Structure formats: structure tokens, C-alpha cells
């Protein structure tokens, strides 16, 4: 189970950890964005500091219909106690957690400031 929280802006904040290229773990928090179909986005300077290897250049359709190119990087995160290889989108944004990491999980959120959020593997 992953425990998150609802912040004063009514955003769901999920804490987890990510490996850098030397396999050291770093704590990280991301805003859950169910409009993002990828796994995770991080700002390019953070990706550079972690030494996450470049994987590919890809393209996303934004909410206004526009198309935007960006780089995907390789990363391993610890998600629900297990290491998981994901692609991290290099985006100028607060870290976003996308729906790909929610596949086969239940999501429950209490939408009050400080409310509890649970992401739990479907049995």
C-alpha cells in the first residue's frame, strides 16, 4: 500500500523513491494527475542530477489539443515496495504521477486538506 495525502490546493501528493544512476535511493513526491497517461514526469534539471539515461524522444497531446515533444528517460522507482522500471518524461512541471503507475491498483482519496490517500494493489 502507498499512502499519500491531499494538500491545501486539493492535489493528491504521493511519496515514493527513485534510484539515481548509481542506484542510490532518493525520496520524491509527485502530484497525481489522472490526465497524464505516462508514469512520471520530472523537471529536466532533476533528471540530469539523477543521471537518468536518455531513452527516447516522444510526443504528448496536451489538454488544449496541442502536441509537444519531450525526452523520456529510464528510471527505476520503488512502487508499493517493489522496484519497477519506468519511463520518466522530462517536463517543465512539478513532478506528475500518471495513470500508468495506477494500473492494477485501487485508488482512494479523502478530499479534505490533509486527507488520506491510499493506493493499494488489487488482489
Amino acid at each position, binding site marked *: 500500500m502507498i499512502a499519500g495525502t491531499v494538500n491545501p490546493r486539493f492535489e493528491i501528493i504521493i511519496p515514493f523513491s527513485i534510484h539515481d544512476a548509481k542506484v542510490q535511493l532518493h525520496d520524491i513526491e509527485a502530484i497525481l494527475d489522472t490526465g497524464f497517461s505516462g508514469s512520471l514526469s520530472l*523537471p*529536466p534539471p532533476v533528471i540530469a*542530477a539523477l543521471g537518468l*539515461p536518455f531513452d527516447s*524522444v*516522444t*510526443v504528448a497531446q496536451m489538454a488544449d489539443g496541442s502536441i*509537444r515533444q519531450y525526452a523520456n528517460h529510464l528510471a527505476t522507482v520503488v512502487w508499493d515496495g517493489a522496484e519497477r522500471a519506468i519511463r520518466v518524461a*522530462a517536463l517543465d512541471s*512539478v513532478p506528475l504521477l500518471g495513470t500508468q503507475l495506477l494500473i492494477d491498483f485501487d485508488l482512494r482519496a479523502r478530499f479534505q486538506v490533509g486527507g488520506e490517500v491510499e493506493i493499494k494493489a488489487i488482489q
Partner: protein
Amino acid sequence: MAGTISGIVQDGKVVSSTPLPDGLNVQILVPEAVGEKQGDLRDETAGWRVGSAEASDGVEEKLRAILQGTKVLATRQPRYSMEEFAQRGTEIYERVVQPTLKPEHVDLFLAIDIESEDFELDVNDCKVTDRLHERRPDAQIWLMRVGHPAAYRIGRPLGNGGLG
């Protein structure tokens, strides 16, 4: 020892991706588009900033810790600008890949090496580029999704990232 070894420039010094013996004479070949390329990647970072007094959670604090505490060198780097990836990728898609596609390929992720023109299809965005990198370790991959205008969708506005 002879051959081509890649690397990147960091703090004004060339850092090779493979350890090299002291005293080895090397020649550095600078790809034509290198200035444009790095500018392109830097431009991407320009809109992002850390620092908002209004931040009410630890999201930025965690990022700042990473920025201050770590310096790890990535081994694989892009050799083209975003625009070149898109142009070449789209051109190869239309000329090489599209004629081979079948209706059951719709929705699959498609990874194209814009240098060798090799490609892979898979339902999973990690597996598709992993497999192409296994065959082509140096691949420069353009990732898209068959039958979609883009590989992913992003619902949230970007640029300064809602940090302010």
C-alpha cells in the same frame, strides 16, 4: 585501442562513457548539430524554476535535495534536436513503418531508431524501447503510438509547472 567511444562535455571537460587509460591520445569529433542540440535541451529547462513561497507541501523540497545532493553522469544522450527526432521519426514512419502496419497494431507503442530505421512495436512503452536498445544499443529512438496523434496525453498545463 582504437574505435569510437561516446561521451559528453561536463564542466568544460570531455567525459567518456568508457574508462580510458591515462596518456591515451584521442581525437574529439564534434557532431555538426551539437550547439543547436544542447541549446535545444537547455531551452527545455528554461521555463522551469524551483522556488515558490506558496508551496505548501514537500514536493519542491524533495527536488531541491536531489539538485543539491547529487551529480551523476548519464551514459546515454540524445544526438539530435527534438525537431530532428520528430521530422526523421515521422518521415521514417510514413515511408518504412506505415506500409507494414495491420489493424491489430493500432494502440501499440512504436519505437523507431531514426538512424538505422529499425523499429519495434509493443503494448508497453518500456518494453518497446528496451527491445530496440537490445538490438541497437546506440539507437536514437522516436517513440509514438500507432493510430494516435501522440504517444501520451498530459492533462495539466506546463511551463513554470504551477509552482508559482
